[in-house]
């Protein structure tokens, strides 16, 4: 069993009424004068919504910014793939929305496992994000009168979601990218694309630099800064198959963990219920079908597990609309975690459909009968097209086949109210941190959080750090800490190439994904988790003995890049299992089969587990130390989520 420490983790939440905390913080926080900003170098890793908006904003404020991304252009970060929208408490439709309601929905949706003060601040700045995006020229959907349009999303009773067709993430990201480009042209930001961060450099307890690999030449580079901002996204690709982009990975965050940043709630992963199912072993990633489809689609499976008839030949009485049956008041619109588990339950019982039997039907026949094909085309035309392109089936005629897939990770590096990790000067933004979504994220909240962190939070909290810290000006990239970090990164690359085994990187990644999906996926048990910890350790050992990577270190070498990431995913996978094992309750996306109600719903344990788990690395071969940050709920009452 791992060591457990009730710790001293200080979230540095300001005193005062919840509604006044952020204003009070801003009123009293230290500032950096314009003349001094010029002398400060900030390293920003990642150019998604969080990193792109932070780099652009800090550049405009006068800091010298170095911005790094793994893709060939800052415009391609995975935020670009977000479809549905972004929440903001603007109350433009006058339907009763307030900052408080957005706050409350988010903290409840997260199953009471997030920090009140952070979530409230997120709701407070949500409106500013929309103002900023519009000023940049983001073409949000509008009504005929010229004002902004809103739509509804899961987990809320008001319309507060702003959108740009099904490409909201793309448009918000391009807004941030263009603002970043402006600062690049102005000389405030130096852009370094095709760079992967391989280590963090810590000098006297302060984050002072990073080691990056130039992915074209293979050269390792040392970068010195006054602070490091990590905005490198989530770790859903640990499961191999997910809706994440191929390059999304945990390496930068994991290297920081190994340098002393605590990793919080790694077992909180979001499995999205409506994705296109896996079709074969060659499958490289999964594609999401927007949550909005559940407004008009009905989910069902055949009642009889032996029923292999084509869906249109199965009469009504032989179908089980299991969500409508089990959750009469919410029906097909239950939250993501509930819908995903229900689909798994049906498939586990042998009632899954399609070649693989790992899918359920999402049927639009009733809606088409009621509203006509044209109305459905107007609502979902682009999604139906995408479905047909991928599966070759026409969803106007045949029900869609869907299955849950890994989509987002609520866990991440632990940060305090200022978004600072347990390493001084290392700030973590967006999906890479753990802070705002608790155990389950609501739809349209990821874009909001990334941009809140980058545009509106970090400019204040970074200033607070810099104004209150004496940075050692004598440190250069020739410091021993840089030398040591570079040589350890180099050693690791050479070690990977030196294995010269007989299995490909993808084979190992697929195997890791299978282990995590089965035992650290939608339903977890003590026995399964204990077995996963052992199996992953064995897989790690096999990896370092049998992986085959061709090519050289000093060239463009995708296999080598991926090998390093898979190696880190394996270490993380073990921590995910360890965290899931330690959390002896079910909450949000974390479902322990031992802890459920008699009706099979998640059973939270607020007495023992209303805390953040934060794990401290203690060495490659020793178990991590388990710290806890107790979550104090002063403004909301903890209730059980029921969707019956």
């Amino acid at each position: 069993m791992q060591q457990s420490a009730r710790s001293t983790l200080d979230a540095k939440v300001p005193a005062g009424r919840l509604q006044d905390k952020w204003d009070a913080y801003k009123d009293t926080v230290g500032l950096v004068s314009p003349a001094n900003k010029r002398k400060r170098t900030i390293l920003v890793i990642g150019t998604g919504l969080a990193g792109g908006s932070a780099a652009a904003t800090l550049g405009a404020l006068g800091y010298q910014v170095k911005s790094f991304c793994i893709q060939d252009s800052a415009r391609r970060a995975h935020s670009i793939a977000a479809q549905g929208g972004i929440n903001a408490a603007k109350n433009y439709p006058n339907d009763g929305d307030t900052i408080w309601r957005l706050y409350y929905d988010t903290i409840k949706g997260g199953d009471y496992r997030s920090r009140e003060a952070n979530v409230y601040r997120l709701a407070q700045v949500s409106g500013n994000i929309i103002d900023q995006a519009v000023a940049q020229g983001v073409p949000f959907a509008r009504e005929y009168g010229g004002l902004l349009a809103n739509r509804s999303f899961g987990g809320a009773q008001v319309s507060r979601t702003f959108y740009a067709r099904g490409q909201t993430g793309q448009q918000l990201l391009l807004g941030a990218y263009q603002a970043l480009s402006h600062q690049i042209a102005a000389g405030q930001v130096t852009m370094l694309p095709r760079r992967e961060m391989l280590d963090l450099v810590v000098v006297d307890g302060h984050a002072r630099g990073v080691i990056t690999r130039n992915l074209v030449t293979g050269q390792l580079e040392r970068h010195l800064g006054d602070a490091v901002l990590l905005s490198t996204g989530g770790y859903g690709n640990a499961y191999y198959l997910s809706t994440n982009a191929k390059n999304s990975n945990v390496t930068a965050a994991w290297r920081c963990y190994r340098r002393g940043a605590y990793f919080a709630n790694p077992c909180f992963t979001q499995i999205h219920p409506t994705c296109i199912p896996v079709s074969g072993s060659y499958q490289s990633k999964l594609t999401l079908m927007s949550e909005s489809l559940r407004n008009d689609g009905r989910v069902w499976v055949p009642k009889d597990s032996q029923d292999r008839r084509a869906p249109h030949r199965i009469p009504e009485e032989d179908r089980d609309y299991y969500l409508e049956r089990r959750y009469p008041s919410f029906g097909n619109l239950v939250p993501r975690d509930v819908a995903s588990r229900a689909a798994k339950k049906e498939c586990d019982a042998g009632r899954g459909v399609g070649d693989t039997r790992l899918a359920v039907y999402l049927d639009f026949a009733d809606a088409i009968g009621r509203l006509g094909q044209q109305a459905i085309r107007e609502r979902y035309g682009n999604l139906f097209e995408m479905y047909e392109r991928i599966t070759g089936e026409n969803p106007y005629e045949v029900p869609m086949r869907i299955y849950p897939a890994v989509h987002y990770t609520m866990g991440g590096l632990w940060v305090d109210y200022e978004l600072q990790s347990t390493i001084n000067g290392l700030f973590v933004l967006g999906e890479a941190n753990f802070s705002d979504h608790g155990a389950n994220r609501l739809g349209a909240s990821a874009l909001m959080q990334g941009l809140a962190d980058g545009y509106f939070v970090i400019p204040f909290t970074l200033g607070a750090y810099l104004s209150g810290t004496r940075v050692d000006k004598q440190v250069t990239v020739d410091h021993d800490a840089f030398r040591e970090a570079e040589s350890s990164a180099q050693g690791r690359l050479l070690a990977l190439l030196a294995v010269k085994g007989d299995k490909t990187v993808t084979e190992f990644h697929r195997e890791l994904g299978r282990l995590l999906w089965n035992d650290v996926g939608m339903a977890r048990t003590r026995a399964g988790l204990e077995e996963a910890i052992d199996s992953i350790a064995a897989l790690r050992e096999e990896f370092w003995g049998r992986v085959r990577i061709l090519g050289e270190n000093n060239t463009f070498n995708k296999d080598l890049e991926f090998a390093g990431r898979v190696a880190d995913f394996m270490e993380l996978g073990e921590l995910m299992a360890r965290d899931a094992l330690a959390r002896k309750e079910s909450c949000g996306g974390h479902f322990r089969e031992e802890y459920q109600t008699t009706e099979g719903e998640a059973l939270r344990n607020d007495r023992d587990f209303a805390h953040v788990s934060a794990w401290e690395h203690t060495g490659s071969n020793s178990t991590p130390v388990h710290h806890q940050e107790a979550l104090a709920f002063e403004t909301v009452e903890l209730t059980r989520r029921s969707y019956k």
Partner: protein
Amino acid sequence: MAERMTIHLSVWRQAGPDAPGRLVDYTVEDASEHMSFLELLDVLNEQLVGRNEEPVAFDSDCREGICGSCGVMVGGIAHGPQRRTAVCQLHVRTFSDGDRIVVEPFRARAFPLVKDLVVDRSAFDRIIAAGGYVSATTGGAPDANALPISKRAADEAMDYAACIGCGACVAACPNASASLFTAAKVVHLSLLPQGHVEADRRVMAMVDQMRQEGFGDCSNHAECEAVCPKGISIAGIARMRRAYVRAALR
């Protein structure tokens, strides 16, 4: 059950920018009709590593047609034969059992080759940096509804803003022009009042940058529109040219 297919590929292999390149023939025997074209390349790469041959380098990321990372010539067509589809969403079922498909990188002087099917498209980033933005720094933005914008203008701006920056337009153009890419941003911003203030400077700077990068001029072949995975209209190029002339005369 999914149908198994044999697909022959002739793939451009080039170790680096200065190394000689050539087409190399491969055969994938157990392709599935449900695979995407990039998954077909993944399977090929697994087989190559198994035989101790270096895998084919190509860029890809989101694999759902929105990030713009991927892009290769498939049978001589940028992103392949299916219209309005990026190559990551092109599926093997588009082809027939036994087909031979030539796979080459996007070629243009302004897109220097990096390795195999990977090219350097950073010229696009420099075109945007030349003026493809509204100078609205963070903070101080007025309320989002302070400025009504007609639905028509917003929708049309969105049509152009949908560009994913993949470079297919350049690869398809006989002149290797980046006019469609540049116009998409110029027109997106010029259709919105937020973009008006800097409109003249923007179009001049972006078009000048496009030329400096070594892209050719547009001579109305419309090949770009035909291969654009987002279906961006060449009407944008005409608008950009008018805006350029107006700005130059002012």
